[in-house]
C-alpha cells in the first residue's frame, strides 16, 4: 500500500485541519478539525463532481479551486493527481480588525 504524502499541508498558515480523498471519495488521510470527517468528505466529493464540469468561458482549461466561505472559517478543495485535497482554514474578515 502506498503512503499518502500530505504535501506540507500542515504548514499552511491558519490551517485547522485537512482531508485527502481518493477518486472514489474514500478518506486517505485526515488531520485536525477534519479528522475522519466522512460527512464533509462525502459532501465535497459531490460538490467537486458538479463543480469540475462547470464551464464559465470557451477558453477555460480547468477548474482550479472550490472554496466555501463561512463566517469564521473557509473550506478549500482542489484536485491533483487523482486526489481531492480539502483544507479548513481560519477566516477573519478584514473589517473586523478596523472596527475594533
Amino acid at each position: 500500500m502506498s503512503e499518502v504524502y500530505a504535501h506540507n499541508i500542515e504548514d499552511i498558515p491558519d490551517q485547522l485541519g485537512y482531508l485527502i480523498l481518493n477518486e472514489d471519495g474514500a478518506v486517505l488521510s485526515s488531520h485536525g478539525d477534519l479528522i475522519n470527517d466522512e460527512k464533509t468528505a462525502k459532501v465535497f466529493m459531490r460538490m467537486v463532481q458538479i463543480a469540475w464540469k462547470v464551464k464559465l468561458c470557451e477558453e477555460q482549461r480547468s477548474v482550479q479551486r472550490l472554496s466555501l466561505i463561512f463566517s469564521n472559517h473557509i473550506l478549500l478543495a482542489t484536485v491533483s493527481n487523482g486526489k481531492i485535497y480539502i483544507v479548513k482554514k481560519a477566516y477573519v474578515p478584514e473589517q473586523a480588525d478596523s472596527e475594533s
Partner: protein
Amino acid sequence: MESLLQEKLETTLQNPGIHGIVCTDMQGLCLGNQGAAFEELAGPIAALCEEAYKQWPSQDSPVIVLETTGPKSSADLSLLIKMSDGICTGIIKSKHN
C-alpha cells in the same frame, strides 16, 4: 416583478470586473441572467447550493467560490455563489479586477 429582477441584474453587471450574473431557484430553474452567465449555469449553481445547505443547514449559507484558469488571463474567472431565501445567485467575476 420580473422586470425588477432584470433591472437589478443589469445594475450589478455594470460593476467593474463583473462578466455575468444568474439567478436560479433551488430546483435549478433560471429566474434571470445577464452577460456571460448562461442559463445552463443555473443547474450546477442550484446543485452546489443544495449540497451546502444539506450539510450545514443551521449555519448561514456559505459563499461558494469556483475559480477557473485557462491559457489566457481572460479565462481566469471566479464564480461566486450565495443562497438566500431559496434563491441562488451566481456572479462571474474576473480574478484580475
